[in-house]
C-alpha cells in the first residue's frame, strides 16, 4: 500500500488519465438527487460523492440480462460474449461497495468459477472515493464503513486535495503513468484524514443493532412479524435489484428467431413468486411472508453462519428504493420488539 | 340464378380493420338495398369516460382503434387542452405534427400496398403479392416500419402512445434519434417515387365514378397540413370547427352498430385523402406535387378508387414534410421533458384533425374538478359509411348496365374494392356517440 496526495484541481486530469485503463464508469445525476452508474466521456459529469446509484456496480460484472449460450443457424456463438464489457474503470466506489464486491467474489469465484463474472472482474479497476453518510447509511453497524483491500486506488477528499491510497499493482501502474498528478502525502494530510475519519464516524445517524442477530433471528423464526411484513411487501423485487450483494439469477431458454436458440440469464429475486416454484406447481416459498423472511434470513443469518459476516453492507439502497417504505433497520428493531 | 332477383352477401369483409359485411339486394339491373353491415361489438368507451378524470381520457380513447391510436391521441389532447385553455408550446405542436405524420405514413403504407394494391394486381393478400413484387413489398414494409419508428420515438410506442400527455411530453426525443429518422426518411423518397411510377401505369376502372361532396379541414397555414382551423366542403362552404355538430348530422340505422352521417342538406359526403387532395392539393409542393401530376394527370376525378392513389400522393408528402419537421426540431435545443403548467377548470373543447381516413372530431366537457361530463367522438369512417353504401350502389348498377352477364364473384370483388378504397376503420366507427342531452 502506498499513500499519496493529489490536488483537487487535478481531478479531471486524473479521470482523463483513467480512460487509458478502460471504459470510465462513474455515478452521474439522472434527475435531481437520483444517480446512476454510467460510462462517461465528459469527465465533468462524474459525481463520485453521490452516496448511492440506483443500481450498484454489480451491473458492471454481470448484466441484468445477457445471453450465456447461443446457437444460430446451427452455429454456436462465443459463450457469454453478450456480457463481455471489456476493461472498465469504476470510479466512485465507496467502502460499502468494495465490501460488497468481496462478497460477490466469494460467491462467484469459489468452487465452480463463474467465467462470465470472472472475465469482467479481472478487467475491473476499482477507484474508490471517500463519502459522508446520510440518514440511510448504516455501514458503520455492518462493519463496512472502511476498507483496506480489494480496490486499486482510493481517493479521500480533504480540503483542496485528495489523500490517494494505492492498493494494487494496477493502481501503481496508473500512478506511474501519471506521475505529474501525485505527490507524497504529508503529515498534515494524514492528520486531516484522521480528523475526517472521526467526523465521519460521528456523522452516522442510522444504526442497526447486530448483537447476536443470527441467533435472535433463529429464535424469531415463527414470529408474526413476518406475516405483517408479508402483508406490506409488494414483492416488486426492487430491493434485490438495487442491492449490491443480491446476486441471484434466473436462466431461461428462448427462441428469438427461427433457427436460433439462446440461454438467457437474468437477475432474479427471491421475492418473486416463481423463485422457488418447481415443475408440477409445488412452491417452496408460496407465501409472501416466507419470501420476505427469506431475504432477511439469507443476509443476516445464513450468510453469517457460512462466512462469519452478514451479506448486507449497509448501503441503504433498499431503504431508498422500496416504494412502500420497508426499512431494514426498522424491520430488525421490530423483530427485537423495540419498535 | 334468377335474373329478376339476387342477393350478394359478403359475410366478413377481408383486409379491412374490424368486422363488417356487405349485403346487396339486386332486382333486374337495379339495386334495391345496400347495407354495409357492421357487427363489431361495442366497447362504449365514450360512455365509460363519463366521470373519468381528464388525464385518463387519452389512455382510454386511444384504444378505440390501434391503427388510429396516434390520431385519436392527438385529437383528444387537442380537445382537452382547448377545454382547459392550455396553450401548446411550439415544440409540442411540432412534435405532435410529426407524430401524426408518422401515423399517416404507417397507415397509408399499410393500406395502399398491403390492403388495396393486391386487388389491382390480382392477389388475395400482400403475402401473395410479395412473390411477384418482392422489392416493392419489401420497400412498403420498410416505409410502414419507418412510420412506426416515428410513432415510437414521439409517442413511446407504435400503437397506443404513452408519452403524449396533456400539456406536453413525458420525454423528448434526442437529436441523435431525430437525425437517424431524418436520414431514413430522406432515403425513402426515391424508392417511393419509383412506386408512384409503377402505380401510375395501373388502369383505374371507371365503374365507381360518381359526383361526390368532399369535406376537409382548412389547414392552419397556407400549406398541405393535417391540422386545421375550419371545416370546408367542396361546394365552397366553410364552417367553424366548434359548430361541427351542425355540419355533420349523425343518424342511426337499423342494420349497423355504427351511426351514419350526412350534411345538413341530407347529402352524404366523403372525407379522407381524396377529399383533402381535391380541396387542398394545390398547396402541395416538391415531390408530392410531382406525384400528384403523375397519378392524377387529369386532376382529381370523382372516383373513389382513386382514394388509394390520393393516399400514395399523401405518402410522398408525409415523407417530405417529416424531413422538414425533423429539421425544425433539430434546430431547437435538446431538453429532457416539456410540460406547460395549467389549471384545472370546467370547460368544453373540440379537437378536429385530419387523420389518414379523414376528419376526426373529439369533444369533451369537463367539470370544475376535471371530470368528464360528456364526450363525443365522430370518426371519419362513420362519416363515410353513408357514402360507401351510395358508391357501392352506383358501382353495382354501372357494372350491370354494361349489359353482359356478371357473376357474383365479380360483383363481390367490385363491392369489396369500393369498401376498401375508403380504407374503413370499423373499430373506430362503432364508437360514435354523444353522451349528453337525451
Amino acid at each position, binding site marked *: 500500500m502506498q499513500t499519496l496526495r493529489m490536488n483537487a484541481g487535478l481531478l479531471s486530469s486524473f479521470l482523463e488519465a483513467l480512460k487509458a485503463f478502460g471504459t470510465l464508469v462513474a455515478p452521474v445525476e439522472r434527475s435531481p438527487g437520483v444517480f446512476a452508474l454510467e460510462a462517461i466521456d465528459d469527465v465533468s459529469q462524474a459525481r463520485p460523492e453521490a452516496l448511492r446509484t440506483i443500481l450498484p456496480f454489480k451491473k458492471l460484472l454481470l448484466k441484468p440480462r445477457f445471453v450465456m449460450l447461443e446457437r444460430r443457424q446451427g452455429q454456436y456463438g462465443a459463450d457469454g460474449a453478450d456480457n463481455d464489457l471489456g476493461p472498465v474503470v469504476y470510479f466512485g466506489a465507496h467502502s460499502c461497495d468494495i465490501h460488497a464486491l468481496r462478497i460477490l467474489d466469494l460467491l462467484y469465484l469459489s468452487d465452480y468459477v463463474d467465467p462470465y463474472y470472472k472475465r469482467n472482474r479481472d478487467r475491473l479497476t476499482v477507484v474508490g472515493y471517500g463519502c459522508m453518510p446520510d440518514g440511510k447509511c448504516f455501514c458503520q453497524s455492518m462493519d463496512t464503513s472502511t476498507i483496506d483491500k480489494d480496490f486499486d486506488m482510493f481517493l479521500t477528499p480533504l480540503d483542496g486535495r485528495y489523500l490517494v491510497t494505492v492498493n494494487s499493482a494496477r493502481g501503481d501502474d496508473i500512478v506511474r503513468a501519471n506521475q505529474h498528478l501525485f505527490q507524497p502525502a504529508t503529515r498534515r494530510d494524514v492528520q486531516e484524514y484522521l480528523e475526517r475519519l472521526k467526523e465521519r464516524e460521528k456523522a452516522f445517524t442510522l444504526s442497526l443493532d447486530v448483537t447476536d442477530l443470527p441467533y435472535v433471528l433463529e429464535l424469531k423464526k415463527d414470529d408474526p412479524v413476518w406475516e405483517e411484513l408479508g402483508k406490506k411487501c409488494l*414483492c416488486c423485487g426492487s430491493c434485490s435489484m438495487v442491492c449490491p450483494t443480491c446476486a441471484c439469477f434466473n436462466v431461461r431458454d428462448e427462441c428469438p428467431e427461427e433457427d436460433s436458440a439462446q440461454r438467457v440469464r437474468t437477475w432474479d429475486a427471491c421475492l418473486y413468486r416463481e423463485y422457488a416454484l418447481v415443475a408440477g406447481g409445488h412452491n417452496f416459498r408460496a407465501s409472501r411472508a416466507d419470501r420476505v423472511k427469506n431475504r432477511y434470513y439469507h443476509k443476516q443469518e445464513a450468510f453469517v453462519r457460512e462466512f462469519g459476516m452478514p451479506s448486507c453492507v449497509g448501503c441503504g439502497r433498499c431503504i431508498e428504493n422500496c416504494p412502500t417504505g420497508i426499512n431494514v433497520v426498522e424491520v430488525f428493531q421490530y423483530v427485537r420488539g423495540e419498535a | 340464378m334468377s335474373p329478376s332477383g339476387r342477393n350478394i352477401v359478403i359475410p366478413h369483409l377481408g383486409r379491412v380493420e374490424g368486422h363488417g359485411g356487405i349485403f346487396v339486394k339486386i332486382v333486374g339491373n337495379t339495386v334495391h338495398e345496400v347495407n354495409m353491415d357492421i357487427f363489431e361489438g361495442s366497447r362504449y368507451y365514450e360512455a365509460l369516460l363519463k366521470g373519468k378524470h381528464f388525464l385518463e381520457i387519452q389512455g382510454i380513447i386511444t384504444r378505440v382503434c*390501434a391503427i388510429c391510436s396516434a390520431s385519436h391521441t392527438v385529437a383528444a389532447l387537442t380537445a382537452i387542452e382547448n377545454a382547459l385553455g392550455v396553450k401548446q408550446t411550439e415544440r409540442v405542436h411540432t412534435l405532435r405534427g410529426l407524430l401524426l405524420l408518422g401515423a399517416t405514413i404507417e397507415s397509408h403504407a399499410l393500406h395502399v400496398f398491403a390492403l388495396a394494391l393486391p386487388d389491382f394486381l390480382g392477389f388475395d393478400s400482400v403475402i401473395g403479392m410479395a412473390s411477384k413484387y418482392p422489392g416493392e413489398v419489401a420497400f412498403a414494409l420498410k416505409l410502414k416500419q419507418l412510420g412506426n419508428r416515428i410513432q415510437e420515438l414521439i409517442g413511446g410506442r407504435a400503437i397506443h402512445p*404513452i408519452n403524449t*400527455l396533456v400539456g406536453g411530453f413525458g420525454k423528448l426525443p434526442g437529436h441523435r434519434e431525430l437525425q437517424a429518422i431524418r436520414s431514413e426518411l430522406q432515403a425513402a423518397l426515391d424508392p417511393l417515387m419509383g412506386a408512384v411510377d409503377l402505380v401510375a401505369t395501373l388502369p383505374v376502372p371507371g365503374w365507381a365514378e360518381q359526383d361526390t361532396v368532399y369535406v376537409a379541414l382548412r389547414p392552419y397555414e397556407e400549406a398541405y397540413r393535417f391540422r386545421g382551423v375550419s371545416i370546408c366542403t367542396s361546394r365552397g362552404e366553410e364552417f367553424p370547427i366548434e359548430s361541427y355538430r351542425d355540419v355533420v348530422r349523425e343518424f342511426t340505422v337499423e342494420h349497423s352498430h355504427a351511426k351514419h352521417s350526412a350534411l345538413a342538406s341530407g347529402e352524404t359526403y366523403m372525407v379522407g385523402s381524396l377529399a383533402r387532395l381535391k380541396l387542398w392539393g394545390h398547396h402541395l409542393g416538391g415531390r408530392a406535387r410531382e406525384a400528384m401530376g403523375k397519378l392524377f394527370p387529369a386532376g382529381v376525378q370523382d372516383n373513389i378508387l382513386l382514394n388509394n392513389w390520393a393516399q400514395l400522393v399523401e405518402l410522398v408528402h408525409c415523407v417530405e414534410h417529416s424531413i422538414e419537421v425533423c429539421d425544425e426540431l433539430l434546430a431547437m435545443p435538446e431538453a429532457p421533458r416539456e410540460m406547460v403548467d395549467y389549471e384545472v377548470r370546467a370547460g368544453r373543447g373540440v379537437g378536429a384533425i385530419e387523420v389518414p381516413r379523414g376528419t376526426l372530431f373529439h369533444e369533451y366537457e369537463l367539470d370544475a374538478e376535471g371530470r368528464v361530463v360528456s364526450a363525443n367522438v365522430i370518426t371519419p369512417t362513420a362519416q363515410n359509411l353513408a357514402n360507401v353504401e351510395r358508391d357501392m350502389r352506383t358501382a353495382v348498377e354501372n357494372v350491370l348496365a354494361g349489359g353482359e352477364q356478371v357473376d357474383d364473384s365479380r360483383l363481390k370483388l367490385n363491392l369489396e374494392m369500393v369498401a376498401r378504397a375508403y380504407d374503413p376503420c370499423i373499430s373506430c366507427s362503432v364508437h360514435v356517440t354523444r353522451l349528453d342531452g337525451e
Partner: protein
Amino acid sequence: MPNGNDKPKVGIFGLTGCAGDQLQILNCEDELVRLAGRMDIVDWVMARSGNDHTCRLDVAFVEGVVATERDLETLKEIRARAKTLVALGTCAVWGGLPAMHNEMSREVLQREVYNTHVQFLDTVEALPPTHFVPFELSLPGCPIERHEFLRVVNSVLSGTEPDLPRVPVCWECKVKENTCRVIHAQEVCCGAMTRGGCGARCPSHGVACSGCRGPVEEPNYDANITMFAGRGISWLEIARRMSNFSAPVWMTQGLEQEVRRESKR
C-alpha cells in the same frame, strides 16, 4: 409440430377490440415474411381475403373481448378448430379496457351511446375469452410486445412452450434505472402489480405505469393501495389509475368503499 412437409396451419382472429394485437403482428414486418415460409396462415380476415373458415388449425391466436353473442360463437368455433389456442393481448387475457370498471350498467351504456331506441340484442357484458374457453397460452399486453409474440411463435413452431418472464414491471424499471414514479413523484404507478415484458415503457418515459399488461400472479393490491394512500394520494386518484385495466380484478372491495366514502364528502 409440422408433420412431413405440411406446414402448420395458423389462424389469427379478432373478437371485439381495437385490432392492436393483430396490427402488432403486421408490425413484425421483417419477421412476418420469414414466418410466412414456416407456417400457413389460412385464416386471417384482417390481412387477407379468401380465408378458410372451417379447417383444423394447429395454432390459433385470438384477440379482443367477447362483447356479443356472435363473438362467443366465433370463439367456440375457433376453440373447436384449434390444437393450440393463444390469447393475444390484455383484452383476451384479462378483459382489458372494455371490461373496465365503471358503475354504469350495460343498458345505460347502450342508451348513452346510441341515444335511440335501436336494440342490439346480441351485446353482452364484455368479458375476456379466457373466461369462456380454455387457452394453452396467454400473451398479455396492450398491445402485445412484438418480441414476445415472435418468441411465442418461434417456440410453438419448434414444438416447445415459450417461457416468458413473469416478473413485475418494477424489475425492468429498476434495471433501466428509471426515477421511480412512486418514490420521487408521488404518483400511482401500477408497476409492482403489473406483469413485465414491456421494458417498463411508461416509467422509462417519465410516466407512471397504468397496468396495461394486466396483473402479475398474486399481486398485493392491498399493500399497493395502502402505499398510495400513505403517500397522501386521494382514494379517487388511486381508483382512477387502478381501475382501467383488468378491472374488476383491480378494484378491490376496500378501495371501492373508500372511493364511495370520499366522493360523498
